Each structure stands twice: as structure tokens, then as C-alpha cells.
């Protein structure tokens, strides 16, 4: 005979814990306590994002204004991070460079992620020849390393912020599409999809309203990883002279050409943009890893 134990009211502490788990703020606090490195990563990325958004108020100088009276001034009171070979304030260029990095980073990551997700889910949903053809196209695109494909795209479309976003978005599409398709194939087998079809729902409604929400977890993880990759790709393209162009402030551009020339005589020209790239990419990676751990049920409690 089974013994039924009466349930007792939860303790106050437990209530708070439960509440924390079910509000957004609570979830954030929970995430911060369990994933401190990921939280630090998020804070770094957010700091640079805020700096980029508020660049007009934060930057003490016009980032594009040449000042030949202050060429290659070492970090000091007037210019906290020094000036470059044109006498431009490096701190101001870093802050505005954050704007460029975030526009490209978030633009390409979100663009490539969403297109990839929709194509991945659609491919899994329809299957057959559509899936076959799309996956072979993805195979072709994924055969090229991200930076090589981005270089090819830039050489076709030309330079500039918008074109760089497109150039980085295109290689990200198959990378997201392939992962999301794998999750969507599993979702496709769940009876509610068949039920929706039986009820006469259109393909678009089934894909967008019923399948896409169920693959959001891998999508969000990929998105956070893509931000770092896109920022790095933008810096690489700019460094190679194929990204945004002078006098626009961009971190990779700040490392290009003359930063090498003056590496020994004015090292601050290369050090600070290099640090900014490292910190942002590291921050995005740490946050992405933590997010994956938090979302993946197998890793959640580790």
C-alpha cells in the first residue's frame, strides 16, 4: 500500500528561488551566479556596445579630424590613449570603432543567423529535392573558410560598412542553417507538426510559428558565437584593406599599415585597437559558451 505524504508549503527561501527562476531578472541573476565568466563576457560586449551607441557623447575628439600638431603623441593627459600618425585621438577612434564593430558584428550575426535559421528549418520541413539542393549549396559555401568567402564577396560588392556586413553575413548563413536543420529534423518528427498540417495550416505558418520557436535554443547559442566571429572578420577585412575605409574609425583599420610601421616608435597605435578586438571577441566567446551551457539541459547543472 502506497503511503501518501502530505505536501507542505514551501519555505520562503524556496519561494524566492522559484520566483527568481521565472522572472527575466531572476533568470539573469541566476545566470550571473552560475556563469560568472559568461557574465563578464556579456558585460564586456555590452560595455563596447554602449560605447559605440554613445560615441558622440563619450569621445573627446572628432575621430576623423587630422591634427598635424599632435602626430603620434604618447598616451597622456590630453590624449589618454595617445594619437596616431595623423594626430587623431586613439581613444575617440576606439569608441567610434566600437560602433563600427557592433554594427558589423550584430548586423552580420543577426542577418546571417535569421536567414540561416529560416533556410535550415525550411530545408528540414520540406525535405526531398529542396533539402538536397539547399544542403549541397551549403556544402559549397562551407567549403570556404569564413574569411576567404568574405574576401570574395567584398571583392565583388566593394568596400564600405554595408558591403562588409553583407560579406560576413553570407558565410554565416550556411553555418547557422546546417546546425538549425539538424534540430529542425527532430522537431519535424513530432506529431504536432503533422497535426498542424492536418488542420490545414500553410507551410509558412507551420515553419515560422511552430517549428522556428522550437529551434531557438541552438539559434541563440550560434548567434552569440557569430557576433565574435563577425567582429573578428570585420577587423580582418579592414586590416587587409578590404573592409571599411579611412578615415572611418574601425579597429582592424587602426591596425593596418602604419601601425606596423610604427610598432617600435609608437606602439600604442597598434596596442589599443588590438586589445579592443581581443576583449570583445573573448567576451562574446565566453558569453556564448556560458549561454550554451545554460540552455543545454545536459550541461545546465555542471
Amino acid at each position, binding site marked *: 500500500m502506497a503511503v501518501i505524504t502530505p505536501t507542505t508549503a514551501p519555505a520562503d527561501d524556496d519561494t524566492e528561488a522559484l520566483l527568481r527562476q521565472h522572472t527575466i531578472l531572476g533568470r539573469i541573476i541566476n545566470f550571473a551566479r552560475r556563469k560568472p565568466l559568461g557574465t563578464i563576457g556579456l558585460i564586456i560586449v555590452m560595455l563596447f556596445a554602449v560605447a559605440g551607441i554613445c560615441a558622440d557623447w563619450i569621445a573627446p575628439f572628432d575621430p*576623423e*579630424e*587630422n591634427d*598635424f600638431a599632435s*602626430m603620434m603623441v604618447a598616451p597622456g593627459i590630453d590624449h589618454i590613449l595617445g594619437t596616431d*600618425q*595623423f594626430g587623431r585621438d586613439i581613444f575617440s577612434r576606439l569608441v567610434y570603432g566600437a560602433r563600427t564593430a557592433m554594427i558589423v558584428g550584430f548586423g552580420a550575426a543577426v542577418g546571417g543567423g535569421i536567414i540561416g535559421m529560416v533556410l535550415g528549418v525550411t530545408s528540414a520541413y520540406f525535405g526531398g529535392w529542396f533539402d538536397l539542393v539547399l544542403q549541397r549549396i551549403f556544402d559549397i559555401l562551407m567549403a570556404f573558410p569564413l574569411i576567404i568567402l568574405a574576401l570574395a564577396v567584398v*571583392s565583388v560588392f*566593394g*568596400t*564600405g560598412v554595408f558591403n562588409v556586413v553583407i560579406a560576413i553575413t553570407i558565410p554565416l548563413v550556411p553555418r547557422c542553417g546546417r546546425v538549425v536543420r539538424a534540430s529542425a529534423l527532430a522537431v519535424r518528427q513530432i506529431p504536432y507538426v503533422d497535426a498542424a498540417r492536418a488542420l490545414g495550416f500553410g507551410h509558412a505558418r507551420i515553419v515560422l510559428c511552430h517549428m522556428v520557436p522550437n529551434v531557438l535554443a541552438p539559434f541563440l547559442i550560434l548567434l552569440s558565437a557569430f557576433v565574435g566571429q563577425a567582429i573578428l572578420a570585420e577587423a580582418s577585412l579592414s586590416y587587409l*584593406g578590404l573592409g571599411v*575605409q*579611412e*578615415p*572611418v574609425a574601425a579597429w582592424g583599420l587602426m591596425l593596418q*599599415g*602604419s601601425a*606596423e*610601421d*610604427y610598432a*617600435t*616608435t609608437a606602439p600604442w597605435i597598434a596596442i589599443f585597437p588590438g586589445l579592443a578586438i581581443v576583449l570583445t571577441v573573448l567576451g562574446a566567446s565566453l558569453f556564448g559558451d556560458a549561454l550554451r551551457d545554460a540552455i543545454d539541459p545536459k550541461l545546465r547543472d555542471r
Partner: protein
Amino acid sequence: MSVPRCVWAGLGLAAAIAITPAWAETPKQGGTLTYLIPADAPPSFDAHRETTYATIHSAAPYYSVLIRVPPDNPASTTDFVCDLCTEMPKPTDGGKTYTFKIRQGVKFHDGSKLTAQDVATSWQYIVDPPKGVVSARKSFYEMVDSVQATDDSTVVFKLKYPTTAFLPALADPYAWIYKKDILEKDPHWYEKNIMGSGPFKLVKYEVGQSITGERNKDYYHKGLPHLDGIVGIYAAKQSVRVDALRADRASIEFRGLPPSARDQLTKELGDKVWVQDSDWNCGNILTPNHQKKPFDDPRVRKALALAIDQWHGAPALSKIANVRTVGGIVFPGSPLAATKQELEKIAGYWPDIEKSRAEAKRLLKEAGAEGLKFELLNRNVDQPYKFVGTWVIGEWKKIGLNVEQKVVPTGPWFSNMRAGTFDVAMEANCQSVVNPVLDTGKYLPHKVFPDNYGYYDDDKSIQLYEAMQKETDPAKVRAAMRAYETWTLDTQTHEIVLPYWYRIILGRSEVKGFKISPSHYLNQDLSSLWLDK
């Protein structure tokens, strides 16, 4: 007590040695010079068809020319001396005929005799190439009516009209003398082969790696070359060249290094290196596309020029880029160049930059182009294109213009200019021998000078140029040049001339005998170089 004569003689010798300047050192024979060629490889070895220093730096040591700039004073913009001829001729027939006597006993590297027939045929191919043969500088020789060898030692050039531009054009460093028999058999043979009569003979060429030559024992300039051999190493990347010079893997590079590399190497290597510098007969120019609004309006073009502070910008830029001297359409070292006082009357050279920018703003307002937004087409080459482009955009910003730089590789840069798909282009006017009358042909309308990309039609410009071209009195040529310059840069502002490039050559201290010239195309046969080892 009398001092023995031998003591006086000894003291005299010692004094002579002490006061002898470095350039008068007795050259030593022997050794192999390793030099850097800042390119991947030359497109071909045929200098008649090519326009790049990659061809000159690779193969000039293997060829002779008819006349040239003086090897011991290549900086001169007015002197020319014989290479294959015996004496510089005096023109006859009212300045329309030049008769050159050709050296006897000159041999090609295959052992055959070089005669006036070879010289005349080479020049005929340059002046009037047969169908299917490219002569890149054919337009330089519009004044030449005919070139004939009257016997084995005489070449006669007959001109359509007398002009001061002829002799400098004849000293073109690309005008190598080829063997008549080979040219007539296969005019493309010289694209892939090297066979001349210069101070060095080709030993081997490894594509994109190196080119090696040995001393031509039959060379006709007695005592030259000093070196036993030369090795040119191809190194397109500047950092590779700087490292090679630093590590003594190469002794010299002949195109020019940026100021940062000069400063870095001189600081690190001290007296192990020397530096020679010179104004360069090359300069960036800004070309507004007259086919695009609002650049069809001379007020807008003039405003672009007035915004740029050349007098203060040039000295500052010279610390970071290969530019230095402010000039007009003529190379600043030439007697035909504008003086500072003459330049200061032209838009873009006003001494009071505030007044200049106020006028620029007024003109833009009058033309309805305030806050104009446009693209500056630039070449993806750091030194000095991108540096100068960044500077110019900063200057334009000061009058409220919003300019984006569109940097593209060399191919698309040319194709955009040729197709007219640009707003304003950053161009370069790079010449070899300083020949102002021909060099300034660049500013003629596109219909008469196809390499002008401003796409303007201007008959007065052509009239002014032709008047100058056919004038032989130096004073009148100078006056005509001023009129042409003022019309081009001020009245119409068809083009904006930016500070001239600055050539910095750095060599290891053992390399002697080098004299810098205002062009990286000149004086490249390397016969006068020697190694102090």
C-alpha cells in the same frame, strides 16, 4: 734646413686624401650586388611596351640606350649625354633634324655587332610600331616625322616641328636598343627574352624570385661596370624589403622607402646604411569627373582645391608619407616650374588658408553644393595614395564636405576611371625624364590625351598646350606654361595637383657610386655602382 721633396710630396698626398670627398673615392672592382625589386615579377621584359619600374629594375642593366640623363648627375633636369652615340648633336634644319653618330665596336651579348641599323629600327618600333606591336610611349614622339639609318654609324631623326620636348623624350629610359634582325623576325621576342648590349649579361631569371647578371667584359664604356655580378630579388612586400635590408640579405632598393622605414633602419643600423633623398617626378592629382554633377561646375571644383592647405599639409605629411614638395603641374626642380609666388596666386595654393576656405564655402553655397556628399576613388596602395587620400578627406571636411573613400585594387581603380564611374579620383602623374612639356600633356582633355579621366572638353586648354609645345624660346615656353597652368588649375580647376612624391633611397654603407635621380626609372643600368668590401 730644407724639407726633403719626398716629405712635401707625402704631406700633399695625405692632405689630398683627407680632403677628398666620399664621392670621389676610387671605385673598387668586383663583387656581386644584391638589390631588391619591389614587385612580384615584371609583366614582360619588353620595355617598349611596358610602363612599370618592375621591367626597368629587372632588365635595364642588360640594355643600352641612345642618350640618357648624365649617370654622374641624374638629378639634372636639363642635361643629356650619349650612351650609344658619340656626341650630342646640334639640331639643323631650323631645329627639325638631329643627326647622331653611333659608337663603333659595340657588341650585343650574343657577340654580334651593334650598328646604326639596330638603333634606327628600335626607334622606328617605338615611334611608329607595326600592327600588333605595343609602344607605350608612342604619344611622346608625335613630333617625330622619320627615323633613318643613313649608314652603319649614323641615325637621323627628322621632326615635324622644332620643340624643346624632343631631346628629353629621346632620353626615355624605356627606349632600349634591340637587335634589328630579332625585331624584324619576331617583334614579341623581347617580351620573354633579354639580349642587349648593356653593362651586364643575363645569367638566369627565376620567375618571381630573382634575376641574375654578370659583368659584360665587352662593355663599351671603359672601366665599367665595376661589379662582377648583380642579383635582383623580387620582394613586393615592404616589410620583407625592410627586413632584408636590416639583415644584410640585400644591399639596396631603388624605388623608394617611406619615412617610417628610413627612420627605423637608420636608428637601428646607424652608419651601416646611408640615405639619399630627392623630389620625385611623380605626384598625386585629384580628378573631378566633369560628367557628373555637380563637378561639371567650375565653382565646385575650385572649392575642392581651395579647401586643401598644401603649404602646411605637405611638411606634416612628409613625416609619414612619401610626399614633400608643393608644386604645380611642372616638377618643382625644373626651370619651367612655377615659383612659390606664382603658385600662391592659384586656387589651392593661397597662403591664407582661412581666406581660402571661406572662399570655398562661398563658392559651394553659390553653386548650391553646401554639405556635398561624394566618393573619392583611390588605389589600394598605402604609400602614398591612401595617406594622401585620408589627408585630403580631412581637409574637405573642414568646409563641410562629406566624403567617403572608396579604395579598390589597381585593376578596378583603372577600370572605374576608364569607365567614368567615379565622382573624384585620386590619380598619379608619374614620369621618368623631367620633360615638362610632355609631362603636362596629362592635363589635356580626354579626347586628345586618353589617359586624362576628367572627361572635359576644353578647346582653349588644347590651344594653350599646342602654343607651348611648338615654342622653342625658353622664356616664351615658360610664359606659355604659366598660362596653361593657370587655366588648368585655377580658371577651370580641371585637376588638383597635390604635393609631389619624395624619393628616399636607403643602401648598405658598402654600396657606393649611387646618385639619386628624380625618378625611379632613371639611371638603372647599375654600371657605376661598386662595393666597398
